[in-house]
C-alpha cells in the first residue's frame, strides 16, 4: 500500500478553503457543476464579443417571443372563430385578401384567415422542426464520426461511402419523392432531414475531427489505464467532438427550416400551417405574380424564413469562434 507522508500543514488564510479529504458525492457534483458553469461563462463571453453572435441571439429571441405570443393572444384578445390560423375567417372584412388594418395588422389571406396569426402559429413548429432535425443529425453524426475514426478499416469505409452516397443524392428532390411515397408530417420530416444530415456530410466533418483526436497521447494514456473501446469513444473522443457537433447543429437547423419551406411551398407536406404553406396559399390564389400589391401575403412569411435561417447560420459562425480557437482574437 502507498503510505502517505505526513499531512502538510493547512494552507495559510489566503489559500482557497481546503475541502477535507473524504467529502461527499454531492461535493463532487457541485465542483463539476461549477466547472461546467465556468467553461460555459468563458465560451459565452467570447460568443457575445462577436457582433453576429449577438445579432443572431436577438433575432432568435424575437422569434421565440413570437412563438410564445400566439397561444397567449388566442387566449386573451383573439377569438378562435376569426383568428384561428387554419379555420378562422375574418367576417369583419369585405374583400379577401384584405390589406393590413388595425384588427388584422398583417391583413388576411385569400381564404380570409389572419396572416399575423398564421405567422405566429408557424413559428413554434419551425423551432420544433429545426431543433429536432438538428438533434437527430448531431446524435448520428457524432457517433458515426467517432466510431468510424476510431475503428477505421471496413467500418470506416462503409460509413464514409454511405456519406458520399447521401451527399451525391439531390436532397430536395429526394424529399419530394419521399413525400410522394409517405405522408410526411413535421416529425417525420425532421427525422428524414436529421438522418440524411447525420449520415451525410456532417459525419465526414466530425470524423476528420475525431481522427485528429484519436492520435492524441491521452487516448494512449486511456488505453494504458485499461479503458476499453467504449470508454475511449464515449469518454474521450465524443466529449472533445461536442463543440464542433454543436456548431453543425446550428447549420442543420438552417437547412431543415429551408427544406420545410420548399416542400410546403410545393404543397407536399402534411402540415396544418407553416411559413411555406402561407406562400403556397398566396401562389395557388394567383397572388404571388401580382407584384407588390399583395405584399402582406408573401413578405412576412418570406422574411421570417430568411431571418430565422440566417440567425441560426450566424449563430453557428459566432459559435465557430468559441469552438475553434484559431479564429479567435487574442486576449489574455
Amino acid at each position, binding site marked *: 500500500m502507498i503510505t502517505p507522508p505526513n499531512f502538510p500543514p493547512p494552507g495559510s488564510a489566503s489559500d482557497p478553503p*481546503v475541502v477535507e479529504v473524504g467529502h461527499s458525492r454531492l461535493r463532487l457534483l457541485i465542483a463539476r457543476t461549477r*466547472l461546467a458553469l465556468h467553461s460555459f461563462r468563458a465560451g459565452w463571453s467570447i460568443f457575445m464579443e462577436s457582433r453576429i453572435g449577438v445579432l443572431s441571439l436577438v433575432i432568435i429571441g424575437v422569434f421565440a417571443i413570437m412563438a410564445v405570443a400566439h397561444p397567449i393572444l388566442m387566449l386573451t384578445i383573439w377569438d378562435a372563430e376569426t383568428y384561428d390560423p387554419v379555420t378562422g375567417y375574418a367576417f369583419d372584412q369585405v374583400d379577401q385578401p384584405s390589406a393590413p388594418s388595425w384588427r388584422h395588422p398583417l391583413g388576411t389571406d385569400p381564404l380570409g384567415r389572419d396572416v399575423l396569426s398564421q405567422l405566429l402559429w408557424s413559428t413554434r413548429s419551425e423551432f420544433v422542426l429545426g431543433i429536432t432535425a438538428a438533434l437527430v443529425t448531431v446524435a448520428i453524426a457524432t457517433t458515426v464520426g467517432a466510431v468510424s475514426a476510431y475503428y477505421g478499416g471496413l467500418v470506416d469505409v462503409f460509413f464514409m461511402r454511405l456519406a458520399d452516397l447521401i451527399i451525391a443524392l439531390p436532397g430536395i428532390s429526394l424529399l419530394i419523392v419521399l413525400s410522394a411515397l409517405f405522408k410526411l408530417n413535421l416529425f417525420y420530416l425532421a427525422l428524414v432531414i436529421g438522418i440524411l444530415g447525420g449520415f451525410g456530410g456532417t459525419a465526414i466533418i466530425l470524423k476528420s475531427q475525431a481522427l485528429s483526436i484519436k492520435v492524441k497521447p491521452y487516448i494512449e494514456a486511456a488505453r*494504458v489505464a485499461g479503458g476499453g473501446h467504449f470508454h475511449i469513444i464515449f469518454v474521450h473522443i465524443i466529449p472533445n467532438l461536442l463543440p464542433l457537433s454543436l456548431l453543425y447543429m446550428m447549420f442543420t437547423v438552417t437547412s431543415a427550416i429551408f427544406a420545410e419551406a420548399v416542400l410546403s411551398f410545393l404543397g407536399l407536406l402534411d402540415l396544418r400551417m407553416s411559413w411555406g404553406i402561407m406562400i403556397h396559399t398566396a401562389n395557388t390564389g394567383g397572388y404571388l405574380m401580382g407584384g407588390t400589391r399583395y405584399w402582406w401575403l408573401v413578405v412576412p412569411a418570406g422574411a421570417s424564413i430568411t431571418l430565422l435561417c440566417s440567425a441560426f447560420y450566424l449563430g453557428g459562425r459566432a459559435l465557430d469562434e468559441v469552438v475553434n480557437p484559431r479564429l479567435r482574437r487574442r486576449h489574455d
Partner: protein
Amino acid sequence: MEANQPHTPPAAAEGLVSVSGLTRQFPVGRSLFRRATSFIHAVDDVSFQLNAGDSLGLVGESGCGKTTVGKLLVKLLEPTSGRITYRLPGLDGAAGQENAPLEASAIIGRQLRTFRRQVQMIFQDPYESMNPRRTIYDTIAEPLAVQGMGTVLDRVDMVSEILMLVGLTPPATFLFRHPHELSGGQRQRVAIARALVVEPAFVVADEPTSMLDVSSRTGIMNLMQQLAHGLGIAYLYVTHDLAVARYMCHRIAVMYLGKIVELAETEELLRNPLHPYTRALLSAVPVPNPEYRREPPSIVGDLTAPIDPPERCRFFDRCPLATHYCRDNPHPAFEEKAPGHWVACYEV
C-alpha cells in the same frame, strides 16, 4: 531479422520483465489496395531483462526505436516477433502455478485488465497526454474508475493521497482543476500520479522530463526516484540524455537503429564504454568547463531511417572501427564481453 543469430537474454534467471528477440516492423506505403513492400525496422531483435525494483535506462538518438520498445512493453503495440514475458503479481502464466511467467501475447480480456493495473506508462508530453476536458481528479482516477477500484468516495481519497505523494498540496486545490490551469511540471506530476495510483509493479517512463524546462526537471527526477524506491517499482526509463539516465538508472542500454548495442551497469558503462557508438555518445556529453576543447567526433554522417536495412552491422556506415569483416557479416551478436557488460560489436 537474422535467423542465424542466437537469442541471448543477458541474465540467467527470469526477471519481472524479460524480453527476447523483440522485433517490431512498421509497413511503409501500405494502402487499401497495395501491400507494403518495405518495412521500418523500428525495433529489431532486442533482448533484456528487468528485475523487481530494478531500473533500466534506454538511451539513444531520436528515431532509434526507444519509445517503440516502451510501447511494446505496455502492450500499446503488438510485436512483429519475439517474446515478452512478465512475472507480475496476480498474473500467473500456468493455472494454479504461483508466479509463473506469462507471455505478453497471452494477456487478453480479464488478464489484460489486471495487467493494466501492474504495468503503467508515463508519457513524454505533459500537455497532450491529458484530456483537456477532464479534471485532474478525472484524469488520475481514470485507471481506478475503469478497473472498478473503490467507490467514488474511496477514489477521491486515493487521488488526494497520491496528489500529496507527488507533491501537489493541498490536494483539494488541485482536484477539480483542468490541465490547462497547471504548469508543465505540475502536469507531469499529475501524469506520474496517474501512473502510480494503481500501485503498479512496472512503469515505462517515456522521456518524462524532456518537455519540461530545466528548473522543474530535477524536481520530477527526484520525485520519480523517491517514489520508485519507496514503492519498489521497477522502471524502464526511456531518454536521449545520458546524464539523466545516469542519475535515474541502475543499468543503461544504448540503442542504435532498433538494436541494443551495449548494456551494462551505469557506472561500468560510463567508465568503460566498449561500443564505438557509446563512446561517441559519451564524448558528446557537455562538460561544464569553458576551457574544454572537444575532440572532433569519431563518427560521421547522420542517423538514417531503418527502412529495410542491410544485414550487416547497423552502425557500419558511421563506425570508426569498421572493417571488411563487419561489412560481410550479419549484425554482430550481443555478447558478454565483461561480467554484466554486453556489447554487440566484432571489434571490441
